[in-house]
């Protein structure tokens, strides 16, 4: 089986065939390095299609994104192959998911990593203390430098993946799978597979149009696949399941917790260049993400189409 096929499989089956010693994480700010250093593998949770979401929709309300409601539903049903879960402050959705979950399921072994984001030393100090607490809950920081180095080996492949995508050598849905598989594998294994998948990237006809995807998160490849079907391809994105997963590099010298703060505190983690088409996907309950679009418009110097349904998306990339 090719490395690409294997990573596709990991991505699609990540909850049915989880990694060993999986620890659930919710949100984009839980340092995988810290989880791996404690001897676990971070499995980033996403909604499960076959779990009924009606109670979670009522408990969280329409002001919380569908994804967070889906994760609440699955956690309340015990549908994930994990016993412990770390949530973070990457968005208001995750905060509201956590503050509801701790009331609805007090016996779940939860931790909340309150990693904040204002660009100030006061936040850096606060975040470092919260990372130290998380390390304690995980059972110690173990070989954190080693875990950071392993994570960096995968990050080092980020630019190569980005270049192949911009050249049209990788379909949008495949790119999302290559990135998402990294949220369900030990870093060393992931780097190995990703390296060979990029090396074997087949020649492909250039997509009719390149698409930069802004706005809400994509925990599955439905939107990407829909764009692929039109002959276009998503070649970059700003959300937390995309290239930001491999963005940058965590410093390997100096204090490792400080290095993790310097990496996970700043936002945005990626600022991709414009593509042929810019589309902002706004998921139900995530309307607040629209506040960021005028600034993106100015940064990109391009118009941004807004899509809330697959039909609107297809029209935008047509």
């Amino acid at each position, binding site marked *: 089986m090719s490395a690409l096929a294997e990573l596709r499989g990991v991505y699609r089956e990540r909850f049915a065939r989880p990694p060993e010693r999986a620890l659930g994480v919710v949100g984009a700010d839980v340092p995988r390095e810290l989880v791996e250093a404690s001897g676990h593998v971070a499995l980033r949770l996403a909604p499960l299609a076959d779990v009924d979401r009606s109670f979670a929709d009522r408990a969280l309300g329409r002001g919380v994104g569908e994804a967070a409601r889906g994760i609440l539903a699955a956690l309340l049903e015990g549908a994930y192959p994990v016993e412990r879960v770390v949530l973070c402050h990457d968005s208001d959705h995750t905060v509201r998911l956590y503050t509801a979950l701790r*009331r609805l399921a007090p016996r779940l072994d939860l931790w909340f990593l309150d990693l*904040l984001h204002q660009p100030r030393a006061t936040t850096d100090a606060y975040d470092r203390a919260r990372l130290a607490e998380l390390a304690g809950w995980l059972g110690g920081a173990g070989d954190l430098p080693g875990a950071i180095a392993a994570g960096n080996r995968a990050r080092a492949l980020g630019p190569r993946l980005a270049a192949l995508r911009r050249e049209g050598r990788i379909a949008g849905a495949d790119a999302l799978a290559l990135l998402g598989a990294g949220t369900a594998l030990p870093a060393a294994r992931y780097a190995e597979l990703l390296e060979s998948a990029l090396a074997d990237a087949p020649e492909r006809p250039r997509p009719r149009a390149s698409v930069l995807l802004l706005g809400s998160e994509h925990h599955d490849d439905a939107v990407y696949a829909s764009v692929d079907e039109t002959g276009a391809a998503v070649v970059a994105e700003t959300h937390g399941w995309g290239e930001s997963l491999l963005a940058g590099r965590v410093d390997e010298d100096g204090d490792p917790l400080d290095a993790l703060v310097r990496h996970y505190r700043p936002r945005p983690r990626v600022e991709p260049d414009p593509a042929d088409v810019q589309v902002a996907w706004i998921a139900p309950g995530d309307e607040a993400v629209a506040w960021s*679009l005028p600034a993106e418009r100015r940064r990109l110097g391009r118009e941004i189409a807004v899509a809330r349904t697959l039909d609107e998306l297809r029209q935008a990339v047509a």
Partner: protein
Amino acid sequence: MSARGVKRLAAPAEAMQHQREWFRSLRGPIVLADADVPHELFRALEIPYVVNQWWASICAAKQKAPLYLEALRARGYPDDVDAYSAIGLGSVLAEDDDPPWGGLPPVGLFATQRWSDAHEGIAGAWAAETDAATFAFEKAVDRRVPERWWERVADEWEDVIGSERLDLMEAEMHELVGLLEARFRRRFDVERLVPILELANEQQEWSRRTRDLLAATSPAPIDVVDSIPAVMIPQWHRGSVWARDAARRFHEEVEAAVERGDAVCPDERLRLMWIGRGLWFNLGFYQHFQERHGAVFVWSMYLAIAADGYPRRGGEPLRQLAARFAAFSDFLGMPGWADPWYVAEAKRHRVDGVVHLVAPESRSAWFATQALEDAGIPVLELDADNADARRWDEAAFVGALERFIEERLPRR
């Protein structure tokens, strides 16, 4: 039914009169600050400030919100996400030759506390669209949920709120002071903050007495149409002698009304609680049900949170002030903090039913409704925005409340 509602006391009218005169005297640059930001700092630095949500309530009351929200949409910003916090920006971007009260003076700094994703976006938009500087406090989240915080937070705030959150906000206040000193050419002196904090506590103590008196009195001598403006306008001047005295006069008026045996509804049959932000564009809605159903809105969060959520005593001045805001949005909207308090207040005021305004940004709506229903207090949820009249369906909501009263509340 008048959109303004009928007021019975002098306090709201006096407060509104003061507000007009004060607003007319304002000269920019000002600070435009969200409600849950330490206004006491601006007062200690003698920097004029306007509270963003109060200004939005004036814009809504003058039916200008739709125009200002449209101005946001025209520039690509959402006009239906946390409108209450965004109308202020719309008011300075809109083409309006007749703004309420002559419009906002120039804004030198916009201050917020980042507890929703929209707050971050709104602050970013202020920076991008105007010359204002911006400052966003973090909204830290504690992993603990203290029991009955309202009985402890005034004196045991270090424990209730948590030292980590206080350390962070206190440090951020030092940063904000530095920005304010540079931007407005002032010098901060903590000694000026001390009397402001004392006046603020005295003000809230008068509010607490008023809340307790109203809770214990049936039939209700006043309703929320009086209490909301009477408590909130002084709240936006917290730490001033005027605000402390306004709270005292409001208490004295209520006390006199109780002694006279005044009653909003002599045959009061139902006591109602309003959870959520006030309907600034339609205060009359609260009085619609008095005549036919003897139903009086006796509770809104404003007087109660003044009594339970604002007082802080002891400790270093800046840390005491940080303790007022580091957990403020938890009191009103975090599961485990807000819902037990609403139940305690409902019982204290012996309410028969609750009308719960649920907007997308209502953070613990289901938990509050569930806790009240579990306590045997029926709840009607209204899905609407308190500041955006475009989505208010008067006939539908009046009808819903009529049915709620007839079908779910006791018949007396």
